[in-house]
C-alpha cells in the first residue's frame, strides 16, 4: 500500500504518542496540513512561529514528553530559532518540524528557502534533512529518540515539500531505540561507591539539585536521599520544585538571584553532591570563589556538563534516577547536629535581614494569589523581576509545577509556554506571571488563548518599566536610567478585552481582595493587571563579577 510523506509524518507522531503540536502554515508545509484533517493529532495554530516553539517547550516542561512544533520554510523556520535555542539551553526534549523547498530547488535560493539546519546547528542536538521518502519514517523516529534520550534537547527535521507530497510504501520499519538511548560514556559502579564514602565521611555536606533531576524523573529518589540521610539541599533555579521543603533542610536556590542562605551554606560546605546541573555562571558566580572548601561529586547524564565549569573530584556519568537508586543503599545517615544547627542559626539571622523575602509588594501579591489557587496549580513565568519574584515566592510543590526558562532568559517565553502547559495538562490550573515588557513580546498569543478558549490565568505585573534592567542601572550604573521606560499609556485591560479576554486591574500593594476573587473564579481565560512600584526590586542580589557570598541587600549595602 502507498501513502504520502505527510501521512508518514502524522502516523509517526501518533505512534510517538503526540497528541498536540503547535505550528503555523505556509505554502511548503501545506501537504502536511492538508492531511491533518484525517489525523487524531491536534494542531494548534499559534499566531507566531516563535510562540509555536515556546508552546511546544512549555508542553514538554509541563508533561515531561517531547514537544513538537511545526513551521513552513524560510521565515517560518527562522522564527522558530529563539524558541529552539531556549529549549536547547534548558534541555527540553523538542522536535521541530520545518517544511523546506522541494529537493530539486534546494541550493538555488528558491522562494522561502533557508538553510535552517545550518542556522540551528549550535542549538540542536541533531538534525535531519529528509531527501528520500524511504528515510522519512526512520528519521522521525530517530529524532524523537534523540530528543528524549541522554540529556534531552531539540532535534530538527527539515521536510522538503516534495517529500511531504510524494507517495511511498507504508513500511512498518522496526525501530530499535536502544542504540540511541544507550549512553556512550556511562560510569561504572565504583564511582558511586566513592561518592557514597565521601558523602558518609563529610561533616558539612550539601546536595545541589539542578533541572536534570526533573528530566530524569528522579525527584522521588532525591527526596529519599535527602530525607533518609538528613542532608541539607540547595537547588539551582531550574531545580526548584524537585524536592519539597522539609525539616529545615531546604536552603533555597543558589546564584545571582538566589537565596543568601543557600549561597552561604554551599560556600561553607566540605562536600557537594551535585545532581543534574551544569553549574552555570548564574549559579556559581565567580568560579574561583565558589565552594572553596568542598570536594565535589557530580552525577549527570551529560559528560560534557561534568567538569566544564566547576572542577569535579568525583564524576559520575549516568541517569540520575538509576544512579541514585544504586547510591541510596550505600549512604548512611550520621549525626551532623553542628552543621544543621549552624544552618538554623544563619537562617534566622538572614530572615531578619530580609522582610517580605526581598520581593516587596510584588512578592506579597504573588503569595496572596497562590493562597487562593488550587494546590495543583502550574505557575509559568516570563523573564525579569517577575520571574525572580515568582521563583522566590511561589511554593512549588511538584517538579513540573513551576515553569521558567533559565539558560536563555528569553523574554516573551511565558505567554506561549503557558499555552503549551495548559494544553499538555488541561486538568491543572495554569497561571502565568509576566512583566509588561515580556507580555508585549508575544502579545499576539492572546488571540490563540481566546480562539481556543484556553482557561489560562494571566497576571501582568506592570511597573511601566523593564524592571530588571532598571534595577541593574540603579545599582550598578549609578542610577543613570536609559531605555527602560515602557510607559503607562497602554491600557492592557482594554487590550485583553479587545482580544476577547475578560480582565481586571489592581494595585499589588492596595486592596486586592475583590479582584483576586474575580481572578480565582474565572472559568475561562482571564487577565489581571497588577501595578507595582517601579522601585520594587528584588533583593538580595550579587553584583556582577562578585562571588556568591557577596550578596547585597540594598542600594548602599
Amino acid at each position, binding site marked *: 500500500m502507498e501513502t504520502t510523506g505527510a501521512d508518514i509524518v502524522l502516523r509517526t507522531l501518533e505512534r510517538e504518542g503526540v497528541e498536540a503540536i503547535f505550528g503555523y502554515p505556509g505554502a511548503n508545509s501545506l501537504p502536511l496540513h492538508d492531511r491533518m484533517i484525517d489525523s487524531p493529532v491536534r494542531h494548534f495554530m499559534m499566531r507566531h512561529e516563535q510562540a509555536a516553539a515556546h508552546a511546544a517547550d512549555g508542553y514538554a516542561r509541563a508533561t515531561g514528553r517531547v514537544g513538537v512544533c511545526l513551521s513552513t520554510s524560510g521565515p517560518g523556520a527562522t522564527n522558530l530559532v529563539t524558541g529552539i535555542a531556549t529549549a536547547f539551553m534548558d534541555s527540553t526534549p523538542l522536535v521541530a518540524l520545518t517544511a523546506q523547498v522541494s529537493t530539486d530547488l534546494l541550493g538555488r535560493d528558491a522562494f522561502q528557502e533557508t538553510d535552517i*539546519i*545550518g542556522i540551528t*546547528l*549550535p542549538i540542536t*542536538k*541533531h*538534525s535531519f*534533512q529528509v531527501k528520500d521518502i524511504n528515510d522519512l519514517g526512520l528519521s522521525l523516529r530517530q529524532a524523537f529518540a*534523540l530528543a528524549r534520550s541522554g540529556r534531552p534537547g531539540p532535534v530538527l527535521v527539515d521536510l522538503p515539500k516534495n517529500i511531504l507530497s510524494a507517495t511511498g510504501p507504508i513500511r512498518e520499519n522496526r525501530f530499535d531505540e536502544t542504540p540511541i538511548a544507550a549512553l*556512550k*560514556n556511562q560510569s561504572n559502579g565504583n564511582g558511586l561507591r566513592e561518592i557514597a564514602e565521601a558523602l558518609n565521611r563529610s561533616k558539612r555536606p550539601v546536595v545541589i539539585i539542578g533541572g536534570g533531576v526533573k528530566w530524569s524523573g528522579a525527584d522521588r529518589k532525591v527526596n529519599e536521599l535527602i530525607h533518609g540521610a538528613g542532608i541539607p539541599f540547595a537547588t539551582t533555579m531550574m531545580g526548584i520544585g524537585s524536592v519539597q521543603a522539609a525539616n529545615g533542610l531546604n536552603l533555597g536556590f543558589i546564584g545571582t538571584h538566589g537565596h543568601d542562605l543557600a549561597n552561604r551554606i554551599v560556600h561553607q560546605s566540605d562536600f557537594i553532591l551535585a545532581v543534574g546541573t551544569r553549574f552555570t555562571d548564574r549559579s556559581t558566580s565567580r568560579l574561583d570563589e565558589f565552594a572553596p572548601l568542598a570536594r565535589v561529586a557530580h552525577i549527570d547524564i*551529560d*559528560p*560534557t556538563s561534568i*567538569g*566544564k565549569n566547576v572542577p569535579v573530584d568525583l564524576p559520575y556519568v549516568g541517569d540520575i534516577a538509576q544512579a541514585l537508586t544504586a547510591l541510596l543503599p550505600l549512604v548512611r545517615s550520621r549525626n551532623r547536629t553542628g552543621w544543621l544547627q549552624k544552618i538554623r542559626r544563619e537562617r534566622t539571622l538572614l530572615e531578619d535581614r530580609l522582610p517580605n523575602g526581598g520581593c516587596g509588594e510584588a512578592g506579597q501579591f504573588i503569595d496572596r494569589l497562590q493562597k487562593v489557587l488550587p494546590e495543583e496549580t502550574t505557575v509559568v513565568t516570563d523573564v525579569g523581576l517577575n520571574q525572580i519574584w515568582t521563583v522566590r515566592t511561589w511554593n512549588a510543590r511538584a517538579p513540573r509545577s513551576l515553569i521558567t526558562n533559565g539558560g536563555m532568559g528569553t523574554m516573551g517565553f511565558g505567554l506561549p509556554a503557558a499555552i503549551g502547559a495548559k494544553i499538555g495538562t488541561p486538568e491543572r490550573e495554569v497561571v502565568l506571571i509576566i512583566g509588561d515588557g515580556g507580555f508585549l513580546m508575544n502579545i499576539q498569543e492572546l488571540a490563540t488563548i481566546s480562539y481556543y478558549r484556553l482557561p489560562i490565568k494571566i497576571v501582568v505585573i506592570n511597573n511601566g518599566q523593564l524592571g530588571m534592567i532598571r534595577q541593574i542601572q540603579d545599582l550598578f550604573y549609578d542610577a543613570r536610567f536609559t531605555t527602560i521606560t515602557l510607559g503607562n499609556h497602554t491600557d492592557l485591560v482594554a487590550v485583553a478585552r479587545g482580544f476577547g479576554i475578560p480582565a481586571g486591574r489592581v494595585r499589588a500593594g492596595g486592596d486586592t481582595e475583590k479582584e483576586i476573587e474575580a481572578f480565582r473564579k474565572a472559568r475561562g481565560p482571564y487577565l489581571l493587571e497588577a501595578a507595582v512600584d517601579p522601585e520594587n526590586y528584588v533583593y538580595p542580589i550579587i553584583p556582577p563579577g562578585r562571588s556568591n557570598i557577596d550578596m547585597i541587600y540594598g542600594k548602599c549595602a
Partner: protein
Amino acid sequence: MDCRDIEYTLTLLVNNRPGVLSRIAGVLGSRGCNIASLCVAPTADAAVSRITLTGGADGDFTEKIKKQLDKLVDVIAVENYTGPRFIQRELMLIGLRLGGERRADLLRAIDLFGGRIVSMDGDYTVYEVAGTREQTQAVLSHLEPFGVEIMNRTGPIAVPRYGSGNGSLAPDPAG
C-alpha cells in the same frame, strides 16, 4: 574554555554524511578554537570516514573538546592522538624550478631529505616528501631559498604506534 599553544591531534570516526564536518567545525569554532589542519578520508567501510584534526589547546581543553565531539550523533568515536604514542605523518608537494648552477645543490638536498621527484616539466619540478610536521617544515625552510613556486601539504594523519596491549614509549624513529 580557551585554546593554548600546545598542539593536539584528534581523530574521529564519523558517519560519511553531508553536514558532519560543519557540526564538528561548529563545536570547535564556537569555543574559539582554530583548526590548524584537517584531513578527511573514507575508511575501509565507505559509510565511515576518518577525520584527523590538529590545533592548539592545553590538555584539559583537549579532553573537554573530545567530550563535546563525542556527543555529536554522527561521531562514532573520538581519540586523542596527541603525543609520542602515535605516529604522525603528513605529505607535502613542492613545485620549484631546478634551473641554473644551483641545480646540483638542490638535487642533493632533495636526496638528503628522502623525498622524490614525482614530475618534471622543463625545469619545473614537483617534489614529494612525507614526514612529521617538523620534518616537512624543515624541508620547506631549506628549499625556500631555491624559489618554491607552490607548496601544498595534507596536514598530519596519525595512527597508534603500538598494537593494543603494548604500551612502551619508544621514540619515533623518524622524529
